[in-house]
């Protein structure tokens, strides 16, 4: 799976949680999940569970804590699949 394919899936998973949908149109690796997309921070727990299901991976709490941007998520997932 290419980084772009992973990124598309990550964005798709995040979509229902995004409260600032205006910023969805210009998502890049540096897009911050909480500050730019306004995902409720407590919902990151559910987003990580969805990553695990989608990519068949396991994510520890420590690894989950480091995911702040789209790029962080893509890099973490790429290293595991």
């Amino acid at each position, binding site marked *: 799976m290419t980084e772009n394919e992973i990124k598309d899936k990550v964005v798709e998973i995040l979509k*229902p949680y995004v409260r600032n949908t205006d910023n969805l149109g210009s998502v890049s690796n540096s897009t911050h999940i909480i500050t730019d997309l306004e995902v409720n921070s*407590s*919902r990151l*727990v*559910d987003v990580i*569970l969805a990553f695990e299901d989608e990519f068949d991976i396991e994510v520890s709490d420590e690894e989950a804590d480091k995911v702040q941007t789209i790029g962080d998520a893509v890099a973490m997932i790429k290293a595991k699949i």
Partner: protein
Amino acid sequence: MLKRVVITGLGVVAPGANNVSEFSRLLREGRSAITRQEDMAEAGFNSQVAGSPTGYMENLDQYFTSEELLAVNDLMVLTSRAAIDAWKDAGLEVPDRKSDHVHWDTGAILGTHLGALDTVNTKLLPNVQAGKIRRIGSSAVEQIMLSSLSAKVGGLLALGNQVSTNSSACTTSSEAIIMSYLRIRHGLANRMVAGGAEGRNIFNWAGFDAMRVLSSKFNETPEKASRPLSATAGGFVPGAGAGVVILEDLETAQKRGATIYAEIIGTALNSGGHRMGGSMTAPNPISVQRAITDAVKAAGIKAADIDYINGHFTGTFADPYEIANWSTALQIEPSELPPVNATKSVIGHTLAAAGSIETVGLLTQMKEGFLHASLNAEDLHEKILPYEKSIVRERRDADIRIAAKSSFGFGDVNGVMIFRKFEKQE
């Protein structure tokens, strides 16, 4: 100085009705909303009929954002629909999610009896038992906390006054209205969103079936199953739904030109202490009579002023006692009791939601000038026969100026409210 408190908005999701106009039509037409429930049959219930609202999970985008929909359950949807409908009915605007305006003068007391047992049993329990705590996800707490319903509505409507959930079994939502009334009456809030809800799931009903207090002899004829006041009543028909009213102090309501349904002129909340015949599951008759006389006294009216009683009548052994308590408390001969009907004959017993849904029904009848038929009461219980003239068995037009509503619950708890139609010149 004590404030006068009026009702300016109504919202409901009931069996057979997803809004106030559908509910009004249901009551007016006297159609039973009780239907057969396959999930009760499959689970081995003795009773296989219920008042089960349908269609309320549709068009949810009118009530929630797609992000909010990820973290709401049945109970929260029922309550939010009724609350937002009531808010709009009161002529108030649903606040923008992005606006920081908070209604500091407005609160909510929204109660439930059994909470979100469906969420507990389908999301929490299996994951805990399987040792998969992480898999519970982030939204379990906000859905299973008992205050889930008031918290959700508080957020949707940007409420800044007291926002809490109460619980007193089947008295719950009447108690919520009464506590909200008192809060406004004492000047602690200008407006309250008040009522209650019970989710639609068989976990809520199973314990009652085990107690053998549900109607189980009419599984093939559901429309006959809910029979308050009847000699052949054999238990209540369980139901689900939500009823919400908007209460305001008179000045606040009049200042913004709100339409006023009625004024709450007297209320009473008490309990029977599980004494004098009362118990966890049966009301102390003296406490019921005291609740009635206290509410009438607070209202400053005479018993003869009451034009209509919307009773608690469930279709259990307690119905003959309730009607006798009304007669005794009001010191009125059985043949002189004001007209009485049982809304549960139409929609079943919606548990925590019963008091507020039936209050919406009472106010709808008051506004539209009719009394709905109490269904399946053709064969009155022998102890209710002396009251026969008062039982409304066919819909009729009625000028209801003062009406009383009673609710009783497990725990030997009682709530009574007296409403007076609001006259424009006041």
